[in-house]
């Protein structure tokens, strides 16, 4: 019995500016919603130009974009398949979001093994970018907790990938930016919790040495992250707040989270950004933390997802959007590199007020192309000012390279092909596992001759 709804879905191509979170660059693409695990490769059978699977579009640059291509939007393919409360193993389709997983898992006493700073990302996207969280130093990347997944190739072949099965494709797909095939489902190991609450502590620091001391003292605390002021120089250079937390061990109500009600209501005009963001973050930064040390029992939502409360907060950056810059520099040069880059950023006066600073741990990433490695990572945003931001960005990328570091593709819209190929010398090996139908604007940009 042919299914007429399938043909309906297949023919309804929408040309749309699917936006990435940085809203730069903006490219038109055709959107092909995936509803069922069997939709790929059936939906793309007649397509010969590029295809890219995408989820919530929360990566900042162009890893989730394909200029004039076809985007397979996975968010409607979001069914749960199985859950074992004894082991915490959840099997779900790849379009399910971390928010949906939390809604399901938290009332049952389970939590994500690794979460980034937003819960509005898909399971497939979390694997494809091998995301990391505040517990990288204790838990490693997201991919380490994915025990197996199914990968479907455009030739119709389907394979189960795990640390023991199809191991090369397993390693290539984790951090593989959606280029090795479509992940239809994945099995994720959740971890038990008894409370929504986090035992939180915030500590002010002045300078990178104090940050490193606090990092060392907190080596057995599960979650650590810092906000650092990247605009101040002199006595206040690299001042910030070191935040640490553990899941509270006191039994408490495990109710699901309320739905967010705030939505950033309009696109801010370009000039408003500095006044607006600085006042917003000033408030957050100083009034929350007027004391040297603050101890609190905090719900996990504000601890992990402070910005998810305001849907579409990226509009704050106006029409031009924002560039993110996130590096990791290995321990050998981590301190001098971070100081040098922070000085360069402060001198430029172009970055937003606050940036996120964290020490990565030494738990190895399972992905061939995973970004994290032991050292210091710093993430900052620049509102796009074409004549100023890009030259600064290039300088910072070159400095990162000099200090032996690399940049994070999920946050990138500006690195050059030579920079990428120097950051990720294994890229040619990875390219053998790419599905011939799949590509992205990012991939075209950084491997123009492949």
């Amino acid at each position, binding site marked *: *019995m042919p299914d007429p709804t399938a043909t309906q879905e297949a023919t309804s191509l929408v040309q749309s500016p699917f936006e990435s979170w940085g809203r730069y660059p903006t490219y038109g693409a055709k959107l092909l919603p995936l509803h*069922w695990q069997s939709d790929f490769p059936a939906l793309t059978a007649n397509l010969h130009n590029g295809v890219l699977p995408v989820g919530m579009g929360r990566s900042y640059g162009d890893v989730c974009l394909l200029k004039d291509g076809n985007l397979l939007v996975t968010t409607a393919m979001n069914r749960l398949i199985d859950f074992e409360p004894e082991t915490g193993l959840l099997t779900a389709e790849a379009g399910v979001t971390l928010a949906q997983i939390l809604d399901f898992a938290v009332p049952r006493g389970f939590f994500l093994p690794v979460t980034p700073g937003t819960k509005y990302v898909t399971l497939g996207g979390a694997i494809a970018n091998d995301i990391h969280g505040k517990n990288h130093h204790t838990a490693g990347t997201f991919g380490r907790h994915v025990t197996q997944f199914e990968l479907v190739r455009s030739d119709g072949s389907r394979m189960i990938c795990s640390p023991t099965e199809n191991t090369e494709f397993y390693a290539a797909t984790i951090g593989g930016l959606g280029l090795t095939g479509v992940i239809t489902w994945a099995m994720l190991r959740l971890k038990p919790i008894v409370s929504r609450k986090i035992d939180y502590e915030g500590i002010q620091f002045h300078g990178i040495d104090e940050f490193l001391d606090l990092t060392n003292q907190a080596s057995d605390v599960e979650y650590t992250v810092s906000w650092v002021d990247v605009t101040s120089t002199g006595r206040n250079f690299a001042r910030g707040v070191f935040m640490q937390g553990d899941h509270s061990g006191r039994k408490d109500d495990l109710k699901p989270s309320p739905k967010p009600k705030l939505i950033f209501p309009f696109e801010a005009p370009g000039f408003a950004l500095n006044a607006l963001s600085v006042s917003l973050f000033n408030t957050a930064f100083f009034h929350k933390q007027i004391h040297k040390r603050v101890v609190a029992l905090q719900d996990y939502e504000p601890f992990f997802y402070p910005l998810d409360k305001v849907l579409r907060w990226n509009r704050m950056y106006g029409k031009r959007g924002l560039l993110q810059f996130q590096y990791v520099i290995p321990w050998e040069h981590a301190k001098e590199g971070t100081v040098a880059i922070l000085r360069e950023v402060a001198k430029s006066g172009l970055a937003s007020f606050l940036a996120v600073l964290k020490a990565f741990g030494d738990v190895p990433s399972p992905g061939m192309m995973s970004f994290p490695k032991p050292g210091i990572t710093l993430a900052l945003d620049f509102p796009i000012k074409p004549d100023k931001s890009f030259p600064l960005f290039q300088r910072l990328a070159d400095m990162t390279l000099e200090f032996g570091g690399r940049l994070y593709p999920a946050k990138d819209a500006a690195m050059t092909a030579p920079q990428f190929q120097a950051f990720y010398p294994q890229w040619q090996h990875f390219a053998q596992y790419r599905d011939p139908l799949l590509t992205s604007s990012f991939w075209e940009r950084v491997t123009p001759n492949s």
Partner: protein
Amino acid sequence: MSTTPQSTSTTPRKILVLGATSGIAEATCRIWAAQGASLFLVARNAEKLAAVAADLKTRGASYIDTAVADLDDTDQHPSLLAHAINSLTGMDIAYLAHGVLGDQTDAERDFNTAAQILHTNFMAPVSLLTWLANFCVQRRSGTLAVLSSVAGDRGRKSNYVYGSSKAGLSAFLGGLRNRIDREGVTVLTIKPGPIKTAMTAGMPKSEKFADVDSVAESIVSAIDKRRDILYVPFQWQPIMFIIRNIPEMIFKKLNL
């Protein structure tokens, strides 16, 4: 049997879902599954039906059974419905969510296409509802919740074949309600507007479309409150009031 929302601690509600793989049906069933309902799901495609059933089982449905059937085949309806009710050992809610949008342009050229749309969206539900209404009247209880559409409120050039199938369905439901409400059976006509799907992900105006999960919440709540007609999202009620009342002389010249 009460029709108030139940938690898993009391007897679960018994719900028959026809067209269980449709997006709105699936989202609605997820809410019921989380409440611990017993579900009998009917759909045409076995693989999709199995995926939906696994999801609902995982989310906490007390009982799940399924049947693969093409609801266009009205001869099968009595045995299918009897089997479903037997499996559920009763029925509190029947939820009719199957339908096709069809191709308006083809339907303008070819009567067979139009007839197919009318058959799936109108004739098949009439067959199902005839049987189900009589079953509920016998028991003097039950809710029949049926997905119609705002498109049935007034025929427009862009989708009048689909619209007329839903107009017929809405009229049928109105009459059925008038007949069996006094017998203790509730009939809910659901009229959705445009719903946000994967199609609109990342589009600049997509936040103006209704999100399928909030549509599902409204449907569950309308069933719990024994409402008669539900426009969802609610702003479609005043919009359709205006559209229904534009004089035909003007309306025929519009491009809506």
